[in-house]
């Protein structure tokens, strides 16, 4: 499972960076979304994957009897997902708006602010 997740994360990062380097704005956004998901999965994987071990102390004991799943990465991912959802929604609207005003999807043509 770890190996599979690690490969998925690597693929997400690679695909994300590849898409960011394209000239099209839509691919840029998709690339950022993939990268964001890659980062979330990375937190998930690095919080150690454990199956069927909820962090709850059994009623008849006072301490954890076994290694338990770490709840913090899940809280972190939840936060990160919500944040990146908001930012991505914003970015998509921005791209749409920019497309309407500039009339192109090509980032290379958006150079008026770089002129001296």
């Amino acid at each position, binding site marked *: 499972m770890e190996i599979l997740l690690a490969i998925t994360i690597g693929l997400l990062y690679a695909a994300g960076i590849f898409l*960011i380097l394209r000239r099209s*704005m839509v691919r*840029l956004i998709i690339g*950022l979304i993939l*990268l*964001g998901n*890659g*980062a979330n999965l*990375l*937190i998930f*994987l*690095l*919080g*150690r994957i454990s199956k069927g071990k909820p962090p709850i102390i059994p009623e008849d004991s006072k301490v954890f009897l076994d290694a338990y799943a*770490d709840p*913090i*990465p899940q809280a*972190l991912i939840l*936060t*990160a997902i919500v*944040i990146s959802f*908001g*930012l991505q929604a*914003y*970015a998509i609207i*921005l*791209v749409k*708006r*920019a497309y309407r*005003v*500039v009339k192109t999807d090509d*980032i290379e043509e*958006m*150079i*008026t*602010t*770089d002129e*001296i």
Partner: protein
Amino acid sequence: MIAHVVIWPILLPLVSAIVLMFFWNQSKVQRYITVAGHGISLLASFWLALRTYSGDIITLNSGSWPAPYGIVFVADALSGTLVLLASLAAFCVSLFSVVSIGTGRASFGFFPILQFLLMGLNGSFLAGDIFNLYVWFEVIIISSFVLITLGSERAQLEGAIKYVTMNLLASIIFLTGIAILYGLLGSLNLADLSVKIAQSDDKGLINTAAILLLVGFGIKSAIFPMYFWLPASYHTPPAAVSAIFGGLLTKVGVYALIRVFSLLFIDDPFIRSTFIVLAVSSMIIGAMGALVQQNIRKIFSFLIISHIGFMIAGLGMFSTLAVIGMVFYLFHDIIVKTNAFMISGLIFKLRGSFRLENLGGLYNRYPYLSIMFALAMFSLVGTPPLSGFWPKLFLLKASFNELNWWIIGGIIAASFLTLIAVIKIWLSVFWRKHPNYVEAKKRIVWYDLPKIQKFTILLPIAILTVVSLYIGLNAAKIVEICQLIAEQITQPSLYIDAVLSNPENQP
């Protein structure tokens, strides 16, 4: 209870923002509430800053969860001063924006977003938890995204595409760094991480995380070679927005670099020399970029990049003297850059253009104003006894102690190039005869403004100029504060003890 002073600078902007939301379409009422809200935040942060100068590090465990487990807010002297300066800059910008931001932008939520931006800034200065720092960064960037695109002019949208992309990328890289640190050490608390990193022997992964954080914060603070988004976007929004961006947003990146690389990744020779290379390149390349520009705000944007280099150089040397110079420069730069961008906005109001070739004759027409501008400009350059001189003196002294010729050369060359860029502005905006005055006169709005509005635009520039003069003329006092900060930064054990052995931790 006394520790609650830490949370006020975060809560008050939030409260003002919520109050402002109730007056969504009444931009006149919003303007009063904004200034009042920023005024109250300024008082609260002044109180916090004064308390940190006694040498205590104030910590607040949110929800009374003991330190390494809950989210901690920490105010040492560096955080306290930065919160104070951020609130001061935001207060001045809010005064400036009362007149300079039109009803169109105000009715789409300019003023509440400005409060949220200040909340994010104060939060990231006070966060004692690296994931919390990430969340505050997101609060900052989402507010800044709205501020930079509000108005939807073509240039704004084009600039915003670059700004948004680079900031999102920086956040993802930062998050990757956090993931690696958490996976390796199982903690997010900065003080706890510092202890655990010192004990850990997996230097390879820790250095990977360090480089990821360096790149993430480096993009945000616009150091070489990750600065291209800054001059492409900072000159596009209204001057009030440029002012708060130029003054504060890049400095948050620098603050995060200082915090992380003084507390977590201490004394790694590779990272230190990387900092020195990046610093010297930023100084020189930023200043050279400023020379060729024709738009005042783009000149200032490139000068931001150049001057970020000075602070990074201090981080690269990391002796006590260098840290004093670095934090002093940070304080000076917040005031001066905010002021510089507000001045460019005022020049736009007076002459109807940001471009050097359309400007001229300001000294002839407004001699007293020009003297105020001159003070701000020369403190940007670092002419003694203005505020830019002292931190450069400390940085130079620190680099002479180490005989680091790269930094010595970089500081001198960058200061000289800054001087040339400022002289260029001075010559063409103030001294030269106005080239096509009659044609430009149509676009000038200044004459139609009522006196009270003229006063409200001039007041924040005057306040910041006076603060800059105060820093320059009363440097001994500031250096005392910087010494305290340098002591706290160079001895991470003070920070760690304050967070982990907080008496509230014991049940």
